[in-house]
Every structure is written in C-alpha cells, then in structure tokens.
C-alpha cells in the first residue's frame, strides 16, 4: 500500500511538472501582455513597454523556453512571479485560495453525500414515481450548464428580493461589506452569501452522483451476494445497506476525481457570476488582462487540486475495497 502510494505520488509529480510546462507555454504563446500596456492612455513608448514586461519576467525579446526557465527557477523557490499590475502573484494567490477552497470543498462534500443518498433511494425504488421524478430533476440539472444554473439562481433571488422588498438572500460577494456585530450575525451573513454559489456547484454534482449511484446500486441489487445475505435471514434493510450500499460505494471513488473536475470548472463560472474573489474569477479576469503569470498560477492550482482529488479517490477506493488494499 505504501509502495503504491509513493509510486502514485511520483506519477503525480511528473504530471504536475508537465502541467506546469504546458500551461506556461500555452499562456505565454496565446496571451499578449503587450496589449495590456498598449491600452494605457497615453500609450507608453515601445521601449518602456519592453522594460515593464521584462520586469515581470515576460521580456518578449527572450525565447519562451528561456522565460520558462527563469519562471521555474523562481517557482521552485515558491515564488510564482509578478502579476501584470506588478503585484506579487503569491499574495494574490494567498488572498483567493481560501475563498475558492471553501466553495469547492463544501460543494463537493454536500453534492457527493446527498447525491449518493438520492441515487440509492432512486435505485431501490426503480421505475416508481419517486425514481422517475428524481430522474427527471437530475436530467434537467445535468442539462443546464453551471453558468446558466448560477444565473437562474441569481435571477430568482433578485426577483424574490424585489418582490418581498427586503434583502432575503444576499448573493454578491462572500459577505456584506462592512458588516460588524456579534459572531452569530457575521456567521449568518456568510452562510447566506454561501447559499447560492454552493447550490449552483453542488446541485450539478448531486445530480450526477445520484445517477452514478443509482446505476451502481442497480448493478449491485442483482448481485448474488445480496441473495446470499437475504438467505441468511438478514432483514431487507440490513441487506440493502450493509451489503448493497457498502459495495455500490466502491465505483463511486473512481468518479470522485471526475466529479471534482466538473466542480472546478463550475466554480470558475460561479465565482465570476456571484462576484466571489476566488481563483476562478481571477482566471477569467487574468485572461482578459493577458496576465500570463496569474493564468499559470491558477492553472497550477487547478492541476494541484485535481491531482489531489485523484489521490483522495485512490485512498477512498483502497479504504472501501479490501481487494485493492492487498493488490
């Protein structure tokens, strides 16, 4: 098991290196940071732009590979360079990472847990009305792009607030600016702000997990070992949960890393739409600003979280399935 983990970590390290290289290459060739400076009024002279670009490590007179070498020299020491405005990418990263992780972790956890439960319920009641309604809801959710879901939630909240004449659901940013008061009030304010973004990430995850879990559970429902368990004289409920659900959870671990990918993409839209200053919003703004170093930093964050979730999925798999532990 330990050997397996260390090999797995090694593979992850290789993938991270390739990811860093490719994302730098991609960002450096596709984005044109020069445009950002040229757009200034008055337009600075070309030599000054070159100097400014060189100051943030994007000297266009150097070949891309050399620039990458400089960048990676700093990156190994934990310095992700300067943003196009001249600020430290590290500082910005530090400000934003917590915001994103809060959304990602909460959305994934809620979506996964509720999705598994919904899927199991749906499978046990296959083709009944409850299964059919759940299926329909899941289909509509899965067919709605996350950005649209977020927009619909936002518009719904807006309409509700206008209709009631009060700010029932706040949805801009992660807290009401300048809020003060007791811990409870602050906490409640944060929770209300979390509601819609978490829903728009979590609902899609919930819908897809409910479908995975439903089909995994249906496979297991026909398994011989459930019949054996029942033939021993166990109650139906015990058979379904102890033998059925427990085994049907195993394939879920494989979908976990897949699912996280969706959450990550979804979070990008969600942050932008709800004005959360997280990594996703940073990513979209940076592309629009042609901010190469920031884009690379977000890419590394994305790669890192996806790989971590993959590792977590492996550990989960091993925890759930003794065959893997010994393999």
């Amino acid at each position, binding site marked *: 098991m330990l050997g397996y983990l260390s*090999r797995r970590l090694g593979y992850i390290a290789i993938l991270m290196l390739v*990811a860093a290289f490719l994302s730098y290459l991609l960002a450096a060739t596709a*984005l044109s940071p020069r445009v950002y400076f040229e757009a200034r009024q008055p337009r600075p002279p070309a030599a000054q732009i070159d100097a400014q670009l060189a100051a943030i490590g994007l000297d266009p007179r150097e070949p891309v590979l050399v620039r990458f070498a400089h960048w990676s020299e700093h990156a190994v020491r934990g310095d992700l360079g300067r943003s196009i405005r001249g600020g430290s990418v590290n500082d910005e990263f530090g400000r934003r990472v917590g915001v994103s992780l809060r959304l990602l972790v909460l959305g994934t956890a809620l979506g996964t847990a509720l999705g598994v439960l919904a899927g199991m319920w749906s499978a046990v009641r296959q083709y009944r009305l409850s299964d059919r309604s759940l299926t329909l809801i899941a289909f509509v959710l899965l067919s709605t792009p996350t950005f649209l879901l977020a927009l619909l939630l936002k518009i719904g909240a807006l309409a509700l607030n206008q209709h009631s004449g009060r700010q029932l659901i706040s949805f801009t940013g992660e807290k009401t600016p300048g809020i003060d008061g007791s811990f409870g009030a602050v906490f409640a304010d944060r929770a209300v702000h979390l509601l819609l973004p978490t829903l728009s990430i979590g609902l899609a995850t919930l819908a897809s997990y409910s479908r995975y879990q439903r089909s995994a559970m249906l496979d297991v429902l026909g398994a011989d070992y459930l*019949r054996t368990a029942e*033939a*021993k004289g166990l109650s139906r409920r015990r058979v379904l949960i102890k*033998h059925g659900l427990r085994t049907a959870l*195993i394939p879920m671990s494989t979908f976990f890393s897949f699912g996280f990918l969706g959450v990550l*993409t979804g979070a990008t839209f969600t942050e932008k739409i709800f004005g959360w200053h997280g990594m996703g919003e940073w990513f979209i703004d940076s*592309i629009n600003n042609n901010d190469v170093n920031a884009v690379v930093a977000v890419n590394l964050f994305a790669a890192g979280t996806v790989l971590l979730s993959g590792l977590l999925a492996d550990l989960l798999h091993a925890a759930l399935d003794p065959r893997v532990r010994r393999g």
Partner: protein
Amino acid sequence: MADLSAELLAEAADTAARAPAGRFRVVAGRLLRHRGAMAGLIVVVALFGLAFAGPYLTHWSYSDIDYTALRMPPSPSHWWGTNGIGQDVFAQTVRGLQKSLLIGLTVAASATVLAALVGAVAGYFGGRFERILLFAVDLLLIFPAFLIISIISPRLRGGGWVALIGLLAIFSWMISARVVRTLTISLKERQFVQAAQFMGVRPLTVIVRHILPSTASFLIIDATIAVGGAVMTETSLSYFGFGVQLPDVSLGTLIADGTPSAVTYPWIFFFPAVLLVVFVVAVNLVGDGLRDAIDPTSGSNRAAARAKPRRTVTTPGPLTDDAVLDIRDLHVAFPSADGPVPVLRGVDVTVRRGEVLGIVGESGSGKSVTALATLGLLPAEATVTGSISVTGEQIIGAGPRTLTRLRGARVAIVFQDSLSAFTPVYRIGEQIAEAVLAHRDVDRATARKRAVELLALVGIPDPEIRAQAFPEEFSGGMRQRAMIAMAIANDPDLILADEPTTALDVTVQAQILDVLRTAQRETGAALVLISHDLGVIARMADRVAVMYAGRVVESATAAQLFARPLMPYTLGLIGALPTLGDGRHRPLVPIPGRPPAPRDHTGCPFADRCPMAEAACRTAEPELLRVHDHTVACRRAEEIADKAMTPAEVYGIGAQPLPTGTPGDATVLDVRGLVKTFAQHRGKIFKRRTGTVYAVDGIDLHIRRGETLALVGESGCGKSTTLHEILRLAPPQAGTIELLGHRLDSTLRPADRAALRGDVQLVFQDPMASLDPRLTVGDIIAEPMRARRMGTPAVAARIPEVLRLVGLEPAHAQRFPHEFSGGQRQRIAIARALSVEPALLVLDEPVSALDVSVQAGILNLLREVKARLQPAYLFVTHDLAVVSAIADRVSVMYLGRIVETGDTGAVFGTPRHPYTKALLSAVPVPDPAVERTRERILLIGDPPSAGSRPTGCRFRARCPLYAGLSGPDRKLCEDRDPALTGDNRQRTACHHAGVSMI
C-alpha cells in the same frame, strides 16, 4: 459538462459490453416504445426545424436593428420582443440556436469518429501509442477543456467559429477514446476475435469487421450525449466571451446579452436560456432511451416494475408425516412484455427429515426457481401460487418477519457460484458470524468463535487465520466449503444445494460432496441437491425428481430411477451420458430438438422431442401417475416398464458400433519439450514482477492423421496454454513444435506459416462467445476461407456443403447465431473449422457448456466427421467420461507436465499414476449401486497453481501414495523428477507406479 458525459459514458460502456447483436429493428422498436426518448426526439427535430426554417418565418434578420423598438416586449411585429439595441429576439435566438446546434453536431461527430479510431487502434495494438493516449487523457483531466480553450481563445478571434469547432473537437474525444480502448481490450479477449486471429485474419480486418461494429452501440450513445455536452461547453465559453464572437451570435452570447436585464426585460434572457436547456434535456433523453433500447435487460425491468406481485396460497393440505419440505402444485410465472411466462407449472415435492432428494434437469427446467421459491426469495414481480411449507410454516405470502426468522435457521442454501455469492468487502469469518448473529442472541465474539468452529468442521485448515481472509483469497473449493459452513451455522432442518459443485474440478467436487454429506449428518438436516449431473445425483441422493419444462416428470428412489427409468426424457438423459467404461464405439443417445421455451403447454412438453410420442400426447398434458413405484408423467410409461426398454431402443439407435476410423501413419503434430513461462505480477494499477510461472514445463505430444489425442487435467494444469502455444504458430520459448513436417522456428517462411494457418482450426468451449453475433452464419463460416484467399464462388459453393456436413440446412447461412440453440451454434463453429479441411482440429472443451442431451449429438458428430474426413483431433477437456467416449489416446497433465499418457483403453483400464487413479475415482458414475460401493481415492487440497516449481515429483504434495511411503522411497520423490517410462501403449511418470494405494 465533462461531468455529465463522463457519467453517461460509464453507463453506456457498460451497456455496450453487455449488448448482444444490435439488431436494428429490435432497437428501433424499443426506442419507439420509450416515451422519454420519443419526447426527446420530437423536441430535437422541432428545434432543428426551428433553427433552420426560423429565418424564413420572420422578415427580420438577426442583425437588423429596429430603432423604433428598444427592449420591446413580445408583440405581433416582434414575436419574442426586441433587445437593448432593437434587434429582433426571435431572429437572434433562431440564429444563435442554429449556430449552437451546428457546432454541437460537428464537434460530436468528429470527436466520436476520432475516439473510435484512436481508441480501437490503441486498444488493439497496445504499446507506445496506447501509453501516449493514456497520458494525454490524464493530462486533459488536470486541464479541463474549458481552461485551455479560454486561454487560447484570444488567438482564435480571427478564426471564428470554425476554429472553435476544431478546438472543441480536439479536446472532447479523449475520454471517449479511453472508453473505446477499454472496450477493445475486453473485445480482444472475446473468443470470436481470438478465433479470427487464429484463422489468420489480418489485424485491420479484425478491427473493421469485429471490433468497431461491437463498439457501435456505445459510440451511438456517446455521440448523442456528446452533442449535448458540446452545446453546453460552447455556450459556457461564449457566455464569457471566449467562444463565438460578436456580431455572430450563439445561445451563449445571447444569454450573456440578456443577463443584466433578466428581471426587468425577461424575454431577452429567457428565450435563449430555455431553448438551451430544452435542447440539451431532449438530446440526453434520446441518449438515455437509446441506451435502454440497446440494453436487452431494460425492457423486462420496466415490465416488472409495472406488474403487481401476486402470492396466492392454494391447497394447504395436511402435512405429510415428518416432512420438512412439502411443495404442492407450485406455479411460478414472471411477467414479460409478451405477458406472463410460466416457469413452474405445478411442482409437487416432499422431503422427509434426514432425506437426500436429488433434483435433476437441464438448464431452464425450473430447478433453481424451485429452490428460490422455497426460501421466499423470488423477485417481487413473480406470480406464485400453490403451497410451500417448510417444517410446517407456509412460505408463500409470508411476511418479511416470518421469512427472516425461517431463512438461515430452518432452511439454508448453498449457491453455485461461490465467488459472487460472498460479499467481496467482508471477511469470510465475518460473513459466517453474521448468519449466527441473525438468529442467536449471542455477542460478536461468540459468533466469531462459532464461525471458526464451523470452518474447521467443513475441513478448512488453520480456520482461525482463514476466517480473516476475504472471499477472493479463497479457492473455489474453499469458498464452497465456507458456503456450507454458513448454511449449517444455525442447524437448519433443510439444506438446499443448488449446483454446489458445477464450477469445480472433479477432485474438488468429490471433496465438496463429502463435506455436504458430513454437514448433513452433523445437523441431521434434509438435503435437496440440485444438479444437472446425473453422476452427482447418483452418488448422493436417496430419491430423485427429474424436472422438465417447469414440472417434475418422473420421481422414484435413486436405485429404481437409474436402474429402470420410465419417462423417455429420463431415458434420454441417461443414454446421452458418456461413461468411463464404454469406450469409443457405443453411440450416445442424442435427444433431438431443444428444451421448449417456457410457455403453457396443451400437450406433453416433451412430445416434440420424444420418439414415442403419439397423437394423444399432443392434445393433453399427461398426469403424474404411479407406475411400479415411480411417479411418472408419461402415457407410455406402463409400456416402457413392461418391455423393459433401454435408451437405445426408445430412441431407435442401432446397436451396431460407430465406425471410428483407424489412425494413419503420417504425423500431423509433433511437440517435444515444449516450455511456456509467464512473468507473475501483483498489483492492479502498478504491476510488479514477483516470480515466474511455469505454465507448461517440457511436454511432448504426438498426433497422427485420423487420431484423437485427449489432453486432460484440472484447471490451471497448463492445457489451455499448450493449445495457445501450438495455435500461435510461432517459435516456442523452448522445445520444438513440428506441424505437418514444418518446424515452427525462426526459419519458417511467412508464406509457409500463412499456409499452415489453414491446416489448424479451432473450436472453442462456448459457441455463443466464439461466433460474432453481428455476422450471418454464412459470413462466419466463410471467414477462415477468406483468410486463405479463396475465391468468392468457391466460398459460396463450400458453405452449403459444410452446413450439411454438420447436420444443418444450407438455408441457415442467412441467419444470425442468436437464432440457434447452443448445440446448433457449436455445429456452426465446427462447420467454420471444417470449411478449410484442416489436417488438425483443436477442440477446447467443445462440449462443456452444453446440456447432456445436446453434448451427445456433438460427440456423435465429431466421431462421424473423423471417420469420414480423417482429420486429427487435439481434444482438451476436464471430463474423463467424454475422453473415454472420443479419444484414441490420452495425455494426463498436472502442473505443466504430462504424468501419464497412452491408449485411452490402457490408461483408463489400468491407470498407473496415482493422479490418474484419483481423477478416475473422482468421476461420478450415474449408477447408485456402483457409486455406493466404490472405493474412492480422495485427493487433499486444491489443484495448485504453477507459481512454484518444486524439485522432484510435483504431484508429491497431494499424492496419496507418497503419504504412505517409507523414508528412502519418499526421498526419491523429493529429489528426483520422475520421467515418463513404459511402452507406446502407456507411459507413466511415477517412481512408485507399481505400488497399490488402497
């Protein structure tokens, strides 16, 4: 997006792997009946109509600006209103829809084609190409397509939406390609693909003819879902300005346009938003419907969910004295799309305390359903009527409380397939302890202790340690012992054993039957033993019930039933069975036709296959009558009893022996010192080498023209590896293979090798798996001829010839494999092999998957073909009775070595090797008188794996002879590897072959 398609892909891949022939009409019919899919299809068609006919419906173009109408609500002049700069929302939405659909369709189509080609090639050839694909997919998973396309998008602005299509397609095929690769790898293991490879069909032809069509069902579903996914990705990108660029519009840009004023001017936002969701939902519904339509099991599930379960108790008559099981007039029917299917049609069974009842019958006769009904384990949708009383309590209609109280405590069951019968994630000991805890008020520790005791009782060594093992760490025999331990955990009054030894080797089967006997004696329970094997029944049963088409058609004490069967079906079963004693000349009795599909019968269900059927048999189903201590459902039983008719008489098989032909002198195959080793790996994801397996370790084989050599041994002895080494036609690792005088070494020219391909043909065990379900019988038979480049007219002329040769009609060439029964399919496989008149026919367990009555027909056919065409047969089997029925010579294999070889009569008549003796004595004989008096040599332990290569004799560890030897004699076995000694009639590899064991 990625999320949705990944989910649906996983399901679709699963479905595609299970799907049989994707018969177009059947699928289309199912699709038409699928309400969701039809609704989806109608919506998709309507939206396409709107997208492409829409521009002609209104005189506004999408770019026209009506300065008089800014943000105007829907009105007759602007149906869906106008936007902030006075553009017509209808015209804009229609234009956006058009663009989004075009992009979605093109991306899905090109991605699917790419995925199919790359996936199939990577999966089929493997190697570097495959590794690059896998790495690329891993990379893509860290960089979601959305991220990459967003970054590249500034460079795209000039390229427009065509460049966007290209990018989307590039980033959306990889995951599907990985699925196609996985499918291809599993297809490569499928026998019909291997058959094509062994026939010499070229790799690209194999991919095009066999692999891609088999992945088609997956690809169709995949492409459908991909359309929705592509539309979702495109709109997301366009919403953020990374996709379609203004002034061009797509649904994404329109939604972005409408967002700021969505509450005040909802029409600008909601028309494109709703169309987007409706379209994707509709496409996904179609995809879902397609999957259901292609998955053959889904229809019955739905029918099942709609049916109302019915449980009716009838005739709960008085219980027979001391009966633990009393089944009266049991009827079971399952709902289906074509109405209820009767599976049991009036079964009466009584089992007394301590009695062993054997239930015998072919597949589909209703044996297992009877067992499940007894436990109340039939699915809810089954209609059950009659009466089942277990120790006086009624099972039919009993509530869950009663059932859980009885199950495991009064009545327990031993299932057939012991690997899938244990929950894979719990330890064996835990699962047994669970049975104890379910019925006894004891604590966990006590239950665990009891589990260990039970494991010891059923003969598992080191039970404390073994209780900690997981099911897959046990061998098949050990699991079956654990299953028995679980069944007797609560001292039941009745044990049901449903084919408890069917998947096991004969030596292990003998052990398990002994354990069952012990278990039954220890608990004093009655035993119902269900088996298709008359030998097993003869060994164990006090009374026997023969089932056919959902009824008991004959029952009597075991002695009477085997000595004097009265129902023609029973006579057929007994006559069809090859036995060790009777050699190659006795014709076996094949029962013509096939068991009827479950339905209601007006006449006797056996009438169509019965040589003694009269007109009256077809008008009324015969009652069960008592005839000479038998209960038998046959009008002519009395007559059969009076004339004491034998199977051969009933079936009109002449007494004259079959011609077997005499072997010629020409050598067809000569194998010397053949060695094949495998590297042994552990680990599922990261493999590491842990040792070397000597699967075949220096064996000799010699077959002459017109001769049948049987290679027998237990699973894992290396017989299949030997076959593969010969069929590869490549130089072996060590030793030599000479085929028709050509030595298979590096000097063999490719042209000669190609010619040799046609001289060796293969028949697999499972005829369903070895015939491509998507080809017609004619195309299947033509495959080896085409691989040999025979001309089309010659091929067309040959097909009817070989079909007649194997007893089928020339007209059958137009049909598909699934239209035939198992026996007929095996005839097709034989016809395919014979089409190129091979000098050597390799038969890999060709009758193991068939029912006894069908097996007899195939064995007779093989004997006839050999007499007429004089091919040589290399016949691999584990069934010694079949060997004695067909083989001239036999080689017995153990752990990669031949331990005894010679003329079949000599080896089976006077076996000299202790392993041969043990094998022969483990074979059950369908004669209770013989079975009860035989002295049996029980081998200990399981057939070993070839992972270790011990010094000296490798049978030593299980050898009953070695156990009784004195020191110096033992030393010989330990130090020296015995060589084959003897004369041409019989050679034996044992130092102490002469010593008597019993």
